[in-house]
Structure formats: structure tokens, C-alpha cells
């Protein structure tokens, strides 16, 4: 929340206050059933039998008690607390973005904002040549040519092993090393699980990856490369390789500033919201650097109020 230090003048303060007030009202209209709890609050269950206690709950004196701050969620008989500001909790199949912190025998260790480091095994990722075969000792020695320390990598959660470690896999062209872009780290609760986490923003020539762990990648669009093309590219000397054009760099900054802004306001991130914010900044001639300024901050909050209000109206109409 404190990522941005914004000094608002008096009018802006009043406008922001009004916008936040509106948001609170809208939220109460949308769902009145949301129950917020804090640590050691009793969760009311109507003494039905066979309640299943999920994450963030414990039993004390025959009552269900929350151990976290968050929102109570009920799925059939399961009662659990959905946290807001907490570290990422992996689920199998999540698409995540991480940073390599260590190369160990046959595996990379990745920082993914989880309570432990994630493991990406050499055998659970596609080799650059694209051939399916056993990984040899030579491959193991060449691991650093695939990912080095501090590389940003996109992968999928494979599952927990017996020893409790978290394993990842990258068995597709879309996964792998991410280059030519920016990595933003935002609270994980702002990214919702969707069908699609890879987005190609054609009008900007960008790739946007919303990692479920709150790592957001914004980079120049890269076509999934076939193995033959890759070999050709390797032949080109490093200094002849194409630089990212200035326009694309600007777009990267604009999109990443929208992400920063939305996360500072605490709004859930979606492609639509990010692109809308970027478009709004463009249409009202806001400079990239001014996107993090006070005026646009307030405007974004006000626009969000309108968006949610219209959503609510549509829902009622249907």
C-alpha cells in the first residue's frame, strides 16, 4: 500500500475520499454476505454437523476460530479464511513468474514469494533443442546456459513432493526465460486465478504475464520460437541482435506504471483494468512519469468507481 508516496492537495484529498466512500458503498451492495474476520475471531457456524475446517481456522472451546485476518469463505461444508495480505499460496497448475536464486545439482531454485523456494528440476523442463530425451551429465553441466542466477523465469506449479518442497515445470514453449522487459512484484491477492494468464497486448507489442504469485512480467512480445529459428539466432553475434525499439520501451513503462498504480490503490488486477488505465492516461495526455502523480491517482480511483457502478447496474438489469 505504501509503495507510492503521493502528496495530494486539498481538492484531490476530498475527491479521493469521496471515491473511496463510493467504493465502500458499492462493495456493500454487491455482496452483503462477505464476513471479515481477524485473528481469534469466532466464525459463526450454525452448529451443523460435519463442518470441515479449512485454512486459517482452528478449534477452541468447541468453536471455529480464525487464525488469520481475511474473509470467511464457505464451499459446501468447508469453512476457510481467505487471506488478503499474505504470502502466495501455490495451487497445482498455477502459472507463476519467479527469479532464479540458486543453481543446485539437476535443479534451479526459484524465489516465488512463497514461504519456501520453489524447485524447477532439469528433467521437468523442455530442452532448448526441443528433443525429448534423457538428461545427461552434459546437460547438467550446461544448466547455466539455460537459466542463470537472477534470470526471470515463467513456469507452472507441478505440485508438492513428499518432502514438502514445491516443484515447478516448464514443459511448453510459452514457459521459460523472460527477457527484454520489467518484473513488478505486487501483493499476490490482487491477481485472481483466471483461465488466461499470458496476454499479448497487440496494440502495444507487449507480452503481459500476470503470475499467480504476484510477480507481473511486462516485456516485448516474443513469438514462440521453433528450434531451427533458435539455432539461426545463435549464429548471429550478440551485438548484432536487435535492440528493443524506443516505442516498445515506452509502452512497457506505461503498462507497468498502470500496474503500479492499480496495486497501490489496491484494485484487483486484470488485463482489462490495466489496458483501460493505460489508454486513459494516453487519451488524457498524461506523461508516463506523471501516471504515478496525484492527479492521475485520483482519476483512476474515480474511474474505478464508475466502472464498478456500471457493472452493478448491468447485473441488476439482467
Amino acid at each position: 500500500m505504501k509503495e507510492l508516496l503521493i502528496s495530494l492537495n486539498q481538492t484531490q484529498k476530498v475527491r479521493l475520499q469521496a471515491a473511496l466512500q463510493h467504493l465502500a458503498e458499492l462493495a456493500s451492495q454487491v455482496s452483503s454476505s462477505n464476513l471479515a474476520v481477524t485473528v481469534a475471531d469466532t466464525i459463526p457456524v450454525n452448529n451443523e454437523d460435519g463442518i470441515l475446517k479449512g485454512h486459517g481456522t482452528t478449534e477452541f472451546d468447541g468453536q471455529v476460530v480464525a487464525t488469520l485476518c481475511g474473509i470467511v469463505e464457505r464451499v459446501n461444508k468447508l469453512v476457510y479464511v481467505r487471506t488478503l495480505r499474505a504470502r502466495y499460496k501455490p495451487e497445482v497448475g498455477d502459472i507463476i513468474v519467479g527469479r532464479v536464486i540458486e543453481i543446485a545439482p539437476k535443479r534451479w531454485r526459484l524465489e516465488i514469494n512463497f514461504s519456501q523456494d520453489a524447485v524447477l528440476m532439469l528433467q521437468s523442463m523442455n530442452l532448448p533443442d526441443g528433443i525429448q530425451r534423457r538428461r545427461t551429465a552434459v546437460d547438467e553441466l550446461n544448466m547455466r546456459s539455460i537459466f542463470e542466477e537472477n534470470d526471470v523465469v515463467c513456469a507452472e506449479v507441478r505440485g508438492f513432493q513428499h518432502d514438502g518442497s514445491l516443484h515447478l515445470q516448464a514443459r511448453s514453449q510459452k514457459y521459460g526465460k523472460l527477457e527484454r522487459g520489467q518484473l513488478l512484484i505486487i501483493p499476490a491477492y490482487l491477481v485472481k486465478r483466471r483461465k488466461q494468464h499470458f496476454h499479448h497486448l497487440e496494440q502495444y507489442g507487449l507480452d503481459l504475464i500476470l503470475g499467480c504469485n504476484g510477480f507481473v512480467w511486462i516485456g516485448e512480445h516474443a513469438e514462440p520460437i521453433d528450434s531451427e529459428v533458435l539455432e539461426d539466432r545463435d549464429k548471429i553475434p550478440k551485438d548484432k541482435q536487435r535492440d528493443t525499439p524506443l516505442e516498445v520501451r515506452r509502452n512497457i513503462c506505461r503498462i507497468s506504471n498502470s500496474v503500479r498504480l492499480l496495486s497501490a490503490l489496491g484494485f484487483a488486477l486484470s488485463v482489462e483494468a490495466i489496458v483501460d488505465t493505460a489508454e486513459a492516461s494516453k487519451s488524457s495526455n498524461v506523461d508516463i512519469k506523471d501516471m504515478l502523480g496525484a492527479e492521475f491517482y485520483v482519476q483512476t480511483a474515480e474511474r474505478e468507481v464508475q466502472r464498478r457502478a456500471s457493472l452493478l447496474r448491468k447485473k441488476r438489469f439482467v
Partner: protein
Amino acid sequence: MEYVSSLTGFRFDGRRPNEMRQIRGEIGVLAKADGSALFEMGNTKVIAAVFGPREVQNKSQQIDNQALVRCEYSMANFSTGDRARKPKGDRNIISYSADHGSKYINTFDASFSGKNLKQIDIFLQVLQADGGTRSACINAATLALADAGIPMRDIVTSCSAGYLCSTPLLDLNYVEDSAGGPDVTVGLLVKMDKMTLLQMDAKLPAEIFTDVMQLAIEGCKAIASYIREVLLENTKTLECMRGS
């Protein structure tokens, strides 16, 4: 000295004997910490930062099925009335903070729940010291831990009480604290009604001690209800901002 006015029954700073100083808690004051909080009790001001649960950095310290909780406590040089001189040897400071750290850990240990926690670091810094820094630190740490989303069985709060001029006094400030009377600091798991910290550095008759302790417990409960209010407010705001 007369710490409680015999005429009006008020204390130096105008409080009644069983009145607490104004408390204020703020969550999320630091950007880079997993959880952070600022807690004020009157003029005492403490900032807390929590990192983790994260991978254990020193593998030899790892404990199975238990979280490794580290705590560092320090006082800013400018926190007291006279600006503290720069310490000569570093070793002194380290042992001091290690000692204090273990005290805080003992206070919290009973309240941590959850199996797969790794390492949790708590950093406490006193920005302004005006008596009751220990209580303020514990309260700040509770807020920061809850903000970091670390599962806890209960909320730990702490409050101090003293006995001066034959009156039990709640929440001593610096002047009252340095009067040399007994100072009872209590840490309480409020819902479970269990005590995690009880400390006194003077002698008191048993029946008076019970009264003083009871007063401190009441203080803890009052702080707990305030802390929960702050946490609930924060949770609601976050959820409402996130939208559905």
C-alpha cells in the same frame, strides 16, 4: 514525590490511576516488509517489521515442524531524552538485542500455529521511548504479524501497571517508571486467557500484586479490542478496494 495528587486523584499527566494513555496503531507502514505496523502508546512509539515465513537462511538452525522465529529489538539513538552516545563495542548491542529477542519470542511462541512455517523475522525499533516500550513492542509485533498473514491462535497484547503512592497505576509513563516503584508488565493471550509474560522488578505484597496484575490484564484486554478493531478495519478496506 506525589505521583497521584491527593487533592484531585489525578496523575502527573492528568490521567486517572486506571486510565491508559492514548493508543494508536497503523498497519502497512513499510513497503518492503511482508507485514509492518506502527504502534503508539502516548509518547512511546514503536515500529515493527515482519519478514517471512521464508526459507531458513542458516540451515543448521532449522527445526523440524516448527517455525524458527528471530527477533531483533533496538532503540533508536534519538528515542530517549538525551541522545544516546554511539556504542563503543558492537558486541554489547548484539547480546542485548539477542536477550530481548528471546524474550519476545517466548511471548509469541504459544500463539503461532501452522505446520509448514519456516523462518519468521521480527524487527522492532523504538522510535520514541516514554515508558512501557516492552509492551508497545509486543503490541506492534502482534499487529505486524497479523498483517503479514501469519497464522496465530490468538492475539498477544501487553500492558504494564505499577504501584505508586499506595495506588495501582495503569500504563506507566517514563516519569512514573523511573520513580523506582514496582512495574509489572503482563503479556496476555486474550481469548485463551493465558499469560505469556509476567515481569516485575521490585517486591510487592501478594494481595497488592494481584490487584496490580489484574489492572494490567484489564489494560491488555482493552488494547486487544483496539488492535482487533484496527485489523478488522484494515481487512475490510483491502477487500472492498480489491472488488469482486
